[in-house]
């Protein structure tokens, strides 16, 4: 923000200077992601919830495609009355977004008539539609898994001739790459198909609670809605099961703090029947439950458990130790369910009239109807599908490396998907012509320069928001998902000098040493009793929750996943602080007050 000329305000997009060492960052991103002069008139906020790091060129697809799908859903498909879609811009590698509101009353009315018909069809048939949705999503996952990357051998397979296929493999290079991109787009359309309506139901119930009980916290309202049997707990549950099995089978001695996954797996293979028993259970758990990203599915380098076993194997020794000491309890689902009902019925009884209670029942019922989708879609979409998607792109990268276009397969993620198109054309032509592709000289310097820029961009501190402060914020997604409210904006404008402020997402007060993790791959560094401070809270960090005393994040609302997990673990959490990872250093002693949403450095 900028306080030099009177009242505090946010920088305008046009006032942002290029990050030192990354002055050419624009060359990484398509023209339609750049701030325009007229964008200075609008309020933008940094979407650090989904994009807590600078964007590698390929990874911008995780902004481009979702926003293409979300806006289509709200503006064109369901015709939300008061909001069109979300626009995004990239500056210094960071994604800023804004929602386009509908302000004209007549226009709102016209849209509302259409929205009413369309939305109620989904709300009223929710469960059946969700069943159909799961079938379609499983089919998309199967399709992405079955995409092949042509290997372009010296001679085509004989079948091309004897079965008169007539089409050579290089054709499929582009077709199959496009298939990946198209499937990713389809996945995101289905992702938003029910999600925005789901959030609508939440917002209305939360709004009701806040009016009827002005002092209720969002976290308490959320506890009335929270799902018990949601998929997000499953990967962690599988790990606990594997820990139990390790002890039962007598192979638990292999799971020690800091053990290497490859070492443990090799050792198990030589442990006879009990080793085999564990390994086969492991394989079973792995598919699909290890398709869980160590992030939120928005960056290629947030490898899934399936790709990088370090994360689950960092959690296993602790669970094994708990099994031995009898401390590993199953999730107390019945107690959780009973507590959820107790809270809901207590609030219900405090309402002023039976009419109010009837409305409460309707709204809470609707929230609970939409909840399984809202919670579980993430596993199907961001985790399972997206893990497979990145894995396929990686295979294309390996091919480009084999043909000398890239120095390393992983470098494919330094190219925008339209640039990959060009590189693939190059390889298709070269294979056909019999000469070498020209891409090595072209792309490799670009890739090196982009890697250097990304490293420089990591040091740039993105302001939480840009542009003029809006008078009203009524976009359901912006409020629910990103937790951007007037209060939040005011806090961004005048950050407290001594304390980090955010949303109290889970109550309680604790003190302990901070562990600041900027990257989910550092997850193994966490030690017992530390307080996790991270840019974004994500369900795939679940194993960490058994070790930490509290969680603090830069961004997130009271319905963000870690908020929910923290409440279930009964540990304090403060989310949406904006800049906790910048103001707190690993090793500092901090006090996390999950009731008031305050984090203080005390030593």
């Amino acid at each position: 923000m900028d306080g030099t000329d009177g009242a505090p305000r946010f920088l305008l997009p046009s006032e942002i200077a290029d990050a030192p060492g990354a002055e050419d960052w624009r060359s990484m991103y398509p023209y339609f992601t750049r701030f325009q002069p007229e964008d200075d008139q609008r309020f933008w906020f940094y979407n650090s919830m989904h994009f807590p790091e600078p964007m590698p060129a390929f990874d911008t697809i995780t902004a481009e495609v979702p926003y293409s799908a979300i806006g289509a859903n709200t503006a064109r498909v369901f015709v939300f009355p008061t909001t069109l879609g979300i626009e995004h811009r990239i500056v210094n590698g960071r994604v800023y977004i804004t929602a386009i509101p509908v302000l004209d009353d007549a226009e709102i009315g016209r849209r509302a008539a259409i929205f009413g018909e369309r939305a109620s069809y989904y709300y009223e048939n929710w469960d059946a539609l969700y069943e159909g949705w799961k079938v379609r999503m499983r089919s998309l996952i199967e399709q992405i898994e079955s995409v092949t990357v042509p290997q372009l051998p010296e001679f085509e397979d004989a079948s091309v001739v004897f079965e008169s296929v007539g089409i050579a493999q290089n054709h499929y290079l582009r077709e199959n790459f496009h298939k990946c991109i198209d499937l990713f787009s389809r996945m995101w359309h289905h992702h938003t198909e029910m999600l925005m309506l789901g959030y609508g139901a939440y917002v209305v119930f939360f709004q009701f609670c806040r009016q009827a009980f002005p002092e209720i916290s969002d976290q308490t309202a959320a506890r009335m809605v929270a799902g018990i049997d949601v998929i997000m707990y499953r990967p962690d549950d599988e790990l606990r099961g594997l820990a139990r099995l390790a002890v039962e089978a007598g192979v638990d001695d292999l799971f020690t703090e800091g053990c290497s996954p490859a070492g443990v797996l090799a050792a198990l293979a030589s442990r006879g029947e009990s080793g085999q028993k564990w390994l086969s259970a492991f394989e079973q758990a792995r598919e699909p439950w290890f398709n869980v990203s160590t992030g939120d599915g928005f960056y290629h380098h947030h490898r899934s458990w399936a790709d990088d076993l370090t994360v689950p194997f960092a959690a296993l020794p602790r669970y094994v130790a708990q099994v031995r000491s009898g401390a590993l309890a199953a999730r107390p689902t019945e107690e959780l369910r009973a507590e959820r009902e107790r809270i809901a019925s207590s609030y219900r009884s405090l309402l002023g009239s039976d009419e109010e209670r009837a409305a409460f029942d309707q709204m809470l019922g609707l929230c609970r109807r939409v909840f399984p989708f809202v919670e579980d879609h993430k596993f199907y979409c961001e985790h399972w599908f997206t893990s497979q998607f990145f894995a396929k792109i990686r295979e294309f990268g390996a091919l480009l490396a084999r043909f000398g276009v890239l120095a390393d397969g992983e470098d494919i993620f330094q190219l925008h998907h339209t640039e990959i198109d060009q590189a693939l054309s190059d390889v298709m032509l070269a294979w056909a012509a019999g000469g070498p592709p020209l891409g090595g000289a072209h792309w490799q310097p670009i890739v090196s320069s982009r890697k250097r820029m990304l490293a420089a961009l990591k040091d740039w501190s993105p302001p939480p928001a840009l542009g003029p402060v809006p008078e009203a914020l009524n976009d359901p997604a912006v409020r629910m998902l990103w937790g951007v409210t007037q209060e939040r904006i005011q806090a961004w404008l005048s950050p407290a000098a001594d304390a980090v402020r955010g949303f109290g997402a889970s109550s309680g007060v604790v003190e302990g040493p901070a562990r600041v993790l900027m990257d989910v791959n550092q997850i193994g560094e966490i030690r017992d009793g530390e307080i996790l401070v991270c840019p974004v809270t994500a369900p795939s960090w679940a194993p960490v929750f058994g070790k930490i005393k509290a969680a603090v994040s830069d961004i997130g609302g009271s319905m963000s996943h870690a908020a929910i997990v923290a409440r279930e673990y009964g540990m304090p959490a403060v989310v949406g602080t904006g800049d906790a990872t910048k103001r707190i250093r690993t090793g500092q002693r901090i006090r996390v007050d999950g009731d008031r949403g305050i984090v203080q450095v005390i030593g």
Partner: protein
Amino acid sequence: MTDVFVRRLAEVGSADAASAGGKAAGLGELTRAGIPVPPGYVVLAEAFGAALDASLVRSIADLPAGDVGAIAQAAAQVRERITSSPLPASVAAQITAAYAGLGLGVSVPVAVRSSATMEDSAVASFAGLQDTYLAVHGADAVLDAVRRCWASLYNDESVAYRRRLRLPEDGLAMGVVVQRMLRPRAAGVLFTRSPVTGDRSVVAIEGTWGLGSALVAGEVTPDRFTVSKVTGEITGRRIGAKLRLHSFKPNEPGISSSAMPVSLRGLPCLTDDEARALASVGRRVEEHYGTPQDIEWALLGDDPACPPLHGDPADRIRLLQSRPETVWAARERPPVATRKPRASDHVLAWLEKPL
């Protein structure tokens, strides 16, 4: 059979308000609900009737409402007569015996407070201006304090008020509560709904170190705690600048106000567990009466400088008063929402009407 002028608090309840007065009836009712109050007794309105010279007050009834000077003069005379006349022997004997019973024969400090029998709360609040005597020691001092409570019915404002509204002077009466004086670690007030927003799902607690009189007198900015009735979570916690400490000494009457020790000023006067225990007692009282309450509380324990005691804090809570909350009760709130044909209609309604 001799007339009964004194009853133990445990022996009275809501039905006895006409004789015991509202405060005593309320304390008795709390005792019946199983909520601890300091041990004590009530000097019934009948004692006032037996002690008062009826002809003395009749003259007041004829005073013109606008004649402030005459009212002040007459009221002062009545007060003087009440405080200086000896009590009928049977009244004095019963009060003295009950007092002795409180301390098992030893002279203990007590609080003497008027317990108005009138329904009209405005009159009661006038009467409440000067009607509490804290740290009263010895039977004679108690008898004196009882007379002064009675006299407070005739303070200038109360008499002027009754004249303005042409309320009768006949049958005016008052009970007086005599209770063991507590030496609390902390004390204050609590509301079983938010005084700020009216939210019925929270209990709002204000408190300070030592006697609650410092808070009632406005000498401290109290600590404030907001506790969710549903989850028990402390949803608000603001530590006040508690600059004064009210306390009393073993053999000196009255309360002394001294500077709060610096080490205690910024220290919360309640632990979270204590705040939750208070909230839970508040809820029980609210449930007993079926309506939100405005409560005075005290928390027994060591000197504030000592660390909090172990054990269940609920065992150390005593209530000094509970009465219905009146401010929010008087406000009508339209329903936030009512039933709609379909649940999803609530979403449509909200989305069509932006904030």
